[in-house]
């Protein structure tokens, strides 16, 4: 029985329960709306590693608060979004990013929208061409649901 990861999770949950108050951080707001927008954008893209089902913007976990503080300080320092993400992935891996970075491993993931649409539309085109060749009875076509 997997005891250790379970207790790790249990402990992790203990230090920051899945609070549903959201992470209300009144000290967080930047005076500069552009910086504030960057802060909100970033914290809504980073995953809380404790509860794992919320962004650090929404999570009440203690670690989420610490990470928000780090992000805030880095933005104030003038770091770019890429630098901040690098900082976090160097410590927590790609898991912390809700927006999967484009890499060899996620290539298919990001190519998928184009691929899937092309595939399905391709099937449609092929079908329509085939059906257009078949006899269409020229009786009245009324609309119906």
């Amino acid at each position, binding site marked *: 029985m997997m005891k250790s990861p379970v207790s790790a999770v249990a402990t992790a949950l203990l230090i920051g329960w899945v609070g*549903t*108050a959201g992470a209300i951080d*009144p*000290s967080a707001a930047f005076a500069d709306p552009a910086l504030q927008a960057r802060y*909100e954008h970033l914290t809504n893209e980073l995953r809380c590693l404790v509860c794992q089902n919320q962004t650090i913007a929404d999570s009440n976990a203690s670690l989420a608060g610490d990470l928000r503080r780090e992000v805030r300080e880095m933005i104030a320092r003038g770091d770019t979004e890429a630098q901040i993400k690098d900082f976090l992935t160097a410590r927590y891996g790609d898991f912390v990013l*809700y927006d999967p970075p484009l890499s060899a491993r996620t290539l298919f993931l990001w190519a*998928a*929208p184009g691929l899937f649409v092309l595939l399905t539309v391709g099937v449609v085109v092929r079908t329509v061409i085939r059906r257009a060749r078949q006899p269409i009875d020229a009786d009245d*076509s009324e609309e*119906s649901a």
Partner: protein
Amino acid sequence: MIPEIGTLALLIALVLAVLQSVFGLVGAHRNDAVWMRATSSSTVAVFLFVLLAFLVLAYGFVVHDYSIEYVAHNSNNELPLIYRIAAVWGAHEGSLLLWVLILSTWALLVSRLSKGLPDVFRARVLGTLGLVGVGFLAFTTLTSSPFTRLLPAPLDGADLNPILQDPALAAHPPMLYMGYVGTSVAFAFAVAAMLSGRMDASWSRWTRPWTVAAWMCLTLGISLGSWWAYYVLGWGGWWFWDPVENASFMPWLASTALIHSLAVTEKRGLFRNWTLLLAIFAFSLSLLGTFLVRSGVLVSVHSFAADPSRGLFVLGLLLFFIVGSLTLYAIRAPSLQSEGGFAPVSRESFLLLNNALLVAAAGLILLGTLWPLVMDSFNLGKISVGPPYFNTVFLVPTLPLVALVGVGMHSTWKRASYASKGRPLALMAIIGLVLGALVAFVCYGRYGLPLTIIGFGGGFFLMASALWQPLARLVRRQAQPRAALGMAVAHFGIGLFVIGVSGVASYKIEKDVSMGPGDTATIAGYTFRFESSKDVVGPNYLAREAQVAITRDGAPVAALTTQKRQFKIQNNPTTHAGIDVAWNRDLFVALGDELGAGKWSLRLQYKPLVRYIWLGGVFCALGGLIAILDRRYRGGIVEPVHPTDTETAAATGEG
């Protein structure tokens, strides 16, 4: 003693479900009238025993029987009665029992409301439903019985998860399950068709109302869930692309495609294989969702207690039903190919394209949901795929779809001409965009996001396009065929939904503030004033309550109450936001932590047009209801049909 009645009832139900399947499937195969009649009786019997088991469990909650382990883990002496009953489906075992109850209810309805179906066909449908029931009853009795005893019984229970102690809990799972489980009915109809090797127009006419009914329930269930998340979780979000949310949305997309495919099959006997596949996919995605939630392979806030051994059982069920039906499909499909042409611009083409994009969307969601698992399983690392990915990717197939729906609604069968309709539609599109731009700049004072005006424009266009024909008929005092009206209402609902999403995503404002009594903060022209705070005692919780008054330009708008509840047993704090609802926006106040010196942290939110998201869902479901009530489905849901009814009837434009 009484819980054992529950266990016994489930076992009897399992045996009866086996009989239902055997009588149905074997009886149909042998054309044995006695066996086929017995199928209907077994269906009723299964329902009764499952209902008994369900009532036994509910009774256990009502009387605080903590000798039942499930009750002990999910209830509490101070838990109010309504939540005690809702707690029946609050965790894994009980929710499975609900699943099985709803399945047997659907089967009962099919057996009672399908007098017009040929006996062989009905037997096959009920037999298939029985087989599904066997699978889930076996799963319940063998691995997840809600009636296991806890002895010695504790004096008090562990309490229901506080997040679930909300009226919406009473409604969301049952409604969602009705839709989720309802996909099994269309599946059963598809299997019956494949087993018999015949799929004619009457099959479509029988299948369609059941499919739409299940789809309605799924639409409402998902809308309820989104609405519930919005007001209970306190952060004002309405969709997070959480794996379990995705698990309910994918069957919805497949069911929507199925309804549209059925329209073609019913009208012209075409796309039969697509229809079969979609019916199988909708049910498969529903089973897949069940698997994902209960196996522990995915991390989700919704997941029930994860247990890999249970996961293997569900996986077995999954593979049996899905691979089994898909193999049956592979065998039958070649013989079910239909002949029949249509022009490149025709209703058939539009519906085909519609379905293609819906399926693409479902596929993308499936990929995104499973990708972390794929990578983890092959030791390629851990990644997360969340809202940033899904929000972007989902728009790729669906944005064109919004435009297509507005146009395609007015296409005609076989060959569509837009000679007379082209210009009005183009005008509607342009007016929609202009209106969208007006709303953006006049109502909200700024451009918004890159897609905002397109979103508004698309929504307005859809709404206008949907209302066009019904209004025209109204003006000309013509009759409104319910099917067409239903379609219009449902598509109108989609338009509302698009407007709601565009508004909220583009113009919502969120502000975290620290306030003490008398302090104010302003967002979007609304001034929030912290009036007072006090302690409140609830039935099983203690709460801190804050009163916030909202004014606009000095005139009072609302007085909101928000609470932060601390439940006595489970200790998770939950926030109950105060929400002021108006026709064009929500104002949202959520209480946070005490900061000292009398100050509290609060989250203030301005959510424009957010209600249209769920109102859109309601209209969709309403449209479905209107459509089912169409004349051709009357007379005990299914019209009696001559067994010799063939495609000629369909081709001559009947229905």
